[in-house]
C-alpha cells in the first residue's frame, strides 16, 4: 500500500515533467503541422543552459528558466525564417529531415563543446516527507515549475492576441491570414515557444537527473508517446498524456521488470496511432 502510494506520488511528479517536455512538440505539431525531430536536442540545450548558468553565475535552475527560454525562443524564430519556412508545405520528408538536421547540428556542436560526459547540477536541498514518502525537494519545485509554465502557456494561448492568433493559425492558417494575421510570424513564434518550452523542460530535468548532450533523445521518444496518448496537436493533451505515462511507468514497474516498461509504452504508441489517433480524450 505504501509502495503504491509512493509510486503514485513519484509517478505524478515525474509525469508532470514528462508532460511539460512534450508540450512543445505538440504545440509545434498543432500549429506548423510538422513533427519536430530537433525536440530532444533543444531539451538537451536547456539542460546545458541550466548547467552553465549554475556553474558560472550560480543561478539555480528555477531561475535560469527565464534566460534559457528567451534565448531559445529567439533561436527558434531565427531557425524558422532561415530554414523551416523554406520547406513549409513540402512533403513530410522535407520537414522531418530539416528538423533532424537541426538536431544533428546541435548535438554535433554539443558533443564538440560539452563532450558526452555526464553532468549534473547538485542542489544540496534535503528531501521532503509527504505522508510516508520521501521526495527530493528539487522534484517538488520541478513540479511547481511545470505547473506554472503550463498555466502561463494557457494564459498566453487564451488571453493574448498573439496566443489567439496561434490557435487560429493552427485551426485554419488561410482564414487567419484573411483576419490580418501574419502567419509566418505566428508560425515562427510558435516554433520558438515550442522549443523554448522544450528547453524549460530540459532545465527542469537537469535539476533532478544527470544528463549528457544525448539525453534529450530519451525525452523526445517519450514525448512522441505522450503526444499520441494526449492527442496529437493539443498542447494541454500533452500534459494529460505525460501524467498518464508517469503513472503507468511508476505503477506498472512495481509489478513487472522496469526494463520491459518502454516496450509497453511503444506498443501503446503504435496501437494508439492505429486505433485512436486522436488521443485518449480526443474526438474524431
Amino acid at each position, binding site marked *: 500500500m505504501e509502495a503504491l502510494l509512493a509510486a503514485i506520488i513519484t509517478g505524478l511528479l515525474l509525469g508532470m515533467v514528462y508532460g511539460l517536455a512534450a508540450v512543445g512538440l505538440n504545440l509545434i505539431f498543432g500549429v506548423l503541422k510538422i513533427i519536430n525531430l530537433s525536440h530532444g536536442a533543444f531539451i538537451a540545450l536547456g539542460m546545458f543552459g541550466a548547467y552553465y548558468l549554475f556553474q558560472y553565475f550560480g543561478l539555480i535552475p528555477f531561475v535560469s528558466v527565464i534566460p534559457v527560454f528567451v534565448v531559445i525562443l529567439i533561436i527558434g524564430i531565427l531557425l524558422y525564417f532561415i530554414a523551416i519556412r523554406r520547406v513549409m508545405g513540402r512533403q513530410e520528408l522535407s520537414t522531418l529531415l530539416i528538423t533532424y538536421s537541426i538536431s544533428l547540428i546541435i548535438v554535433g556542436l554539443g558533443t564538440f563543446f560539452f563532450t558526452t560526459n555526464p553532468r549534473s547540477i547538485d542542489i544540496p536541498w534535503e528531501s521532503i516527507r509527504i505522508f510516508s514518502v520521501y521526495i527530493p525537494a528539487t522534484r517538488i519545485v520541478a513540479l511547481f515549475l511545470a505547473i506554472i509554465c503550463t498555466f502561463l502557456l494557457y494564459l498566453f494561448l487564451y488571453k493574448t492576441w498573439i496566443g489567439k*492568433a496561434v490557435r487560429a493559425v493552427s485551426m485554419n492558417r488561410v*482564414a487567419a491570414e484573411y483576419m490580418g494575421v501574419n502567419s509566418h510570424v505566428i508560425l515562427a513564434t510558435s516554433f520558438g515557444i515550442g522549443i523554448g518550452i522544450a528547453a524549460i523542460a530540459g532545465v527542469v530535468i537537469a535539476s533532478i537527473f544527470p544528463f549528457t548532450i544525448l539525453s534529450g533523445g530519451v525525452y523526445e521518444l517519450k514525448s512522441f508517446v505522450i503526444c499520441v496518448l494526449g492527442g496529437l496537436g493539443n498542447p494541454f493533451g500533452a500534459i494529460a498524456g505525460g501524467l498518464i505515462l508517469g503513472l503507468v511507468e511508476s505503477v506498472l514497474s512495481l509489478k513487472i521488470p522496469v526494463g520491459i516498461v518502454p516496450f509497453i509504452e511503444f506498443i501503446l504508441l503504435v496501437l494508439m496511432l492505429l486505433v485512436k489517433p486522436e488521443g485518449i480524450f480526443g474526438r474524431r
Partner: protein
Amino acid sequence: MSEILVVENIDSGYKDVQILWDVSLKAEEGKVTVIVGSNGSGKTTLLRTIMGSVRAKSGRIMFDGNDITKWPTYKRAEAGLIYIPEGRQLFPDMTVLENLEMGAYTKRARVKMKENLEYVFTLFPRLKERINQKAGTLSGGEQQMLAVGRGIMGCPRLMLFDEPTLGLSPKLSIEIFGIIDKLKKEKISMILVEQNVYFSLQIADYGYVLSEGRIVKEGKGEELLASEDVKKAYLGV
C-alpha cells in the same frame, strides 16, 4: 465617385492551371459590386487573387490608391480588405466570441472592437445567445452569420462576400441578403459573388458577368438583370 478597388488585366490560377484571363474590374466606394457566373467560372479564384492567397501571374491590383499586387494577404486585411470566404472558414475550436475577436485582429479594428461587437450582436442576436459556444458546433446558418459578423469586426473598407448563401435554406438566404442590404445602407463598400443571380443583381449597384475566367459582360445591376443573355444563362428564363 471614387474607386476603392481597381483590378487591371489579371491573369491568375494554381500551379500550372491558369484560371483567370485578363480580368479587369472596379469597385466603387460605398457601392455594392456583384460578380455573377456559373460554377467554375473563376469567381472564388478572383476573390482569392484580390486577397492575395492566390498570386496574380500578371496584371495589377490597386486598393485605396496603393498598388497591392505584391502585398501578402495579412497586409491587405490590415488595409481594410475583408474577405468572408466561401464555406465560412471559421475557427471551429474557438468560441463565437473568440471568432469575433479574431475578426478584429488588426490594429485598426482592435480599437473599435467594443462598438463593433455591439453592432454585430444587434445584427445577429442569435450569436449573442451562443457567445461561449464553440463555432464548430453551430448550425450552418449561425456559422454564416458568424462569418459575416467576423468580417464586420474587421472594420472593412471593402467587404468581399464569397457565396454567402451557399448551402443555406431559402429562408436563411433571405435573412443574409437582408443583412447585406442593411450594410449597404450603412454605406459599406462590398463586392458580392453569388450564384443567386436574381437577388444579388437586385442589390447590386454595378455588376460583372464572369465566364470561363473572363469578364464577358458588365453594367449596372438593373441593366444586367434586364439583359437577355443573363436571363437566358443564369435565370433560366
